[in-house]
């Protein structure tokens, strides 16, 4: 996750981008998802403060932003580890043994699915279909996909993610 120089808002570059994007839509509220993405990119998760800031930025009421944040599953509503491991367990991955991957990750990280390691390095969650069915099993870590996984590959990936 990037760390913003500005702890209470969005970077200048992101603020400029938001203003540019508003011109692409009939209603500035359309940039809400993008603004939330930016907040999450800079701060790691979307706090109450983040929702109020973004609401003000896009001109939407706070309750609307809360409704949107709670609707879309990719927005973190509480802090997560530096690396969020999202293991797909939907049908195509399930048929190629994603369950074994998830069990392996739980054992190695000594946490249950949904939890974060005490050193705050990893959060482990189950994902719905990632669109990696032809390269299953797969997991997403941040913006990156890891595919055709087995337990050895997963071990190597974990070693690389500091």
């Amino acid at each position, binding site marked *: 996750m990037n760390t913003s120089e500005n702890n209470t808002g969005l970077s200048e570059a992101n603020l400029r981008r938001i203003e540019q*994007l508003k011109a*692409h*839509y*009939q*209603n500035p*509220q*359309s*940039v*809400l*998802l*993008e603004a*939330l*993405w930016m907040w999450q990119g800079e701060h790691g998760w979307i706090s109450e403060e983040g929702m109020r800031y973004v609401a003000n930025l*896009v001109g*939407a009421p706070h309750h*609307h932003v809360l*409704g*949107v944040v709670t*609707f*879309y*599953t*990719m*927005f973190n509503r509480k802090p997560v580890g530096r690396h969020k491991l999202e293991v797909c*367990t*939907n*049908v*195509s991955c*399930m*048929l*190629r043994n994603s369950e074994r991957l998830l069990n392996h990750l739980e054992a190695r990280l000594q946490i249950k699915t949904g939890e974060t390691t005490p050193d705050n390095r990893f959060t482990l969650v189950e*994902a*719905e*279909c*990632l*669109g*990696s*069915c*032809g*390269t*299953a099993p797969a997991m*997403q870590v941040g*913006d*990156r*996909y890891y595919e055709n996984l087995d337990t050895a590959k997963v071990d190597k990936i974990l070693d690389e993610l500091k």
Partner: protein
Amino acid sequence: MEPLLLPPIPDYHRIEVYEAHDGYAMLKKALAMKPVEITNEVKASKLRGRGGACFPTGLKWSFMPRESAKPKYLCVNGDESEPGTFKDRQIFECNPHQLIEGTIIACYAMGIKAAYLYVRGEYKHWIDIVQKAVDDAYAHGYIGQNILGSGFSTEFTVHRGAGAYICGEESSLMNSVEGERGYPRVKPPFPAQNGLWGCPTTINNVETIANIPVILRIGAVAYSKIGAERHPGPILVGVSGHVNKPGVYEMPTGVPLLEIINTYAGGVPGNKKIKAVIPGGSSTMVLRGDALDGVCMDAESLKAAGSAVGTAGVIVMDEDTDLVKVLWRIARFYHHESCGQCTPCREGTGWMEKILKRFVDNNGSYADIDLLRDVANNIEGNTICALGDAAAWPVQSVIRTFRGEFERRVRG
């Protein structure tokens, strides 16, 4: 068939390479035609939407008002979240300019000044590829003001989702573009009258739009002769699950399902028998492995077989598959993704998941089988959008064709 959607040309995603292979020539051709001629050409091609519903694309375009006091919009649906579906991702990665070219042609045909490509939030890597292609297309004058000196102008915006299967439903998608929760809207009114911001809107799938330059290049008549007569054209079939070579394969419509599994995808590992196949993504009815003879990958053949072509996401399950567990996982998915607006879906998907879990744990009863079917029947047709039907169909079809799987799991 020469690949028309995913040509095996190195670096085809780069604008110079695309241009060197006659890329954007069809945009030039289109801009010299009358808009209505393009829609007529698409109608004559018999192209049907590749997002799941197989609706005739030219007919959909013709629903857009010719004259409109309000602006008109195009949404290109790249939400691609149907389990078993991973084809649009290939277009983003390997052929984004054909998608952009098709989008601008569609905008010209319908008099649209702004297009939004909606891409699921997880596909950030592919969004970056497409955004680069869009930026390059702007720089080369294929998007923006006065495109190629024609006087026609249109804008193109890539809109990132944030994790919601339901946003692939066209009215949810529009709400998501508007910065709302992705709730499906009640129809009518239909998007062509009252869509994005209450304005006339057309929503087409990514693969559908990528077909548009092909139709103009080879001609509607030649296009309509590719593959199955009533559902022609090239189609991207994603094969996953128990096959030796999973992946996306381009082929004409109408290829036998068994040929797709055994020839294109290299057959089932260990030469095991096929127990079941989901032919078109998780929303389509499950087919028995011993009933695949003569079933082909097109809308009419799969309909006759009791299923649907859907998004052409073929999921293959070998004889050792625990089908009840697969069905439970699918039910869990729909429960998770139900938007919660309609009671039958919000509650029913959860009940189905719970009942199926009892069978997974060998703890079901004979009455549970009937209860499960009853819940599915009461979801189907009783919701605003098709997610309810999509949740009900796999359950109904597995109870009908694999009842023994449940009876074996009844507690002793």
